[in-house]
């Protein structure tokens, strides 16, 4: 019987290696905060963190950055007055700024087996400096590569033992695409439901993309 549930946070985070690329979902809502605390506890270091934004002075992203375990941050923006902003300006954090839609598309590309794609986003900006561009159908485009994760930290509203998930309201955001893009998608779910309880037509993230699920009642 397939059963992707694990019973402890330590079990959920087991085996994350130093140097891993961590995809962290969430955008105001839908951040798996309990798993982020677990990652800090687990102790893997030299991580590359991929997340929508660099966070503020507190909260899970700030905590993870402040733990000193993150070597490189890939995100769409960083506030100068934030843990991330200060670490970067002090030379203690590598930073790759990616337009938010390109970030989402690069993550989706990793999940979908797309090896690279051209987008007009950022093609005529500073972010294109020194990079490969190409005019397609009259528009200047920038070549972008997929962002693969070793681990994705995922938030869900409901999960079954096959790892089928639903996400609540706008807490969906990066969760489905980050689960797709990582070798190991680790989920914290508010609710556990029996197999078949989620309508087959309304599964938001299919179990094929999920490796471990931890029940974290809300």
């Amino acid at each position: 019987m397939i059963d992707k549930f694990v019973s402890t946070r330590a079990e959920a985070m087991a085996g994350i290696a130093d140097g891993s690329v961590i995809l962290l979902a969430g955008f105001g809502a839908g951040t798996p905060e309990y798993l982020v605390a677990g990652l800090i506890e687990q102790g893997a270091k030299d991580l590359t963190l991929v997340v929508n934004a660099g966070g503020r002075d507190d909260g899970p992203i700030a905590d993870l950055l402040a733990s000193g375990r993150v070597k490189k941050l890939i995100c769409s923006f960083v506030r100068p007055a934030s843990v991330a902003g200060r670490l970067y300006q002090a030379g203690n954090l590598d930073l790759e700024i990616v337009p938010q839609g390109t970030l989402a598309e690069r993550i989706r590309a990793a999940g979908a087996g797309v090896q690279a794609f051209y987008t007009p986003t950022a093609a005529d900006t500073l972010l294109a400096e020194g990079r490969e561009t190409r005019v397609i159908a009259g528009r200047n485009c920038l070549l972008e590569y997929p962002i693969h994760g070793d681990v994705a930290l995922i938030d869900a509203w409901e999960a079954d033992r096959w790892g089928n998930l639903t996400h609540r309201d706008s807490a969906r955001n990066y969760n489905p695409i980050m689960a797709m893009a990582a070798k190991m998608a680790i989920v914290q779910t508010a609710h556990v439901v029996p197999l078949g309880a989620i309508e087959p037509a309304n599964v938001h993230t299919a179990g094929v993309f999920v490796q471990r699920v931890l029940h974290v009642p809300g």
Partner: protein
Amino acid sequence: MFKPLDRNGIAARIARDIPEGWFVNLGIGIPTGVSDFVPEDREVIFHAENGVIGIGPAPAPKDINPYLVNAGVQHITLRTGGAFVHHADSFAIARGGHLDLCVLGAFEVSENGDIANWARSPDEPVKQVGGAMDLAVGAKRLWVAMEHNTKGGGESRIRRVCSYPLTAKGVVRRVYTDLAVLDVTPAGFVVVDMVEGLTFEALQERTEATLIRGASR
């Protein structure tokens, strides 16, 4: 004598020009206020980058749903008929040309439609890009909402050439400022509308780029 519009005034002026049925993304700053000025019985569908289609009015404090925020991470409601999608699908809407309109704030707009809205200098240590570059190149039409002149020096934000790093090239269709509404055309900025009491000459005085009189002026 004339009175510049305040930020709400600019937002209200923009709202007047949005017809029923459009899908619209509103950037942070002045644009966010636009939805407050669209009458409830005019169905305009607002989109947020984080996967919300059909944003409704802000909730009363007691009705806050922690799972429901907009791209500025403010609590919102969902209109009847709204939908949730994931982040890549949400940006497929933005980048795939499905938004009838995006309204962004900006530092500067140039007469060929360039927009600069994410950095005041190429050397800024920390870049704050967000989703503006995606929206700027992807929406069917891009309008900009901003003050006509900078606060301190009173320098013109309506430029022959942008002095700040670009967000995107040649994408702005129209600019709404506290003084005027300007269309970006192949010939340059055309004045569509001005606040009452302002003359074309006085507007030109406050504008670095050369303005063109609109049909009604």
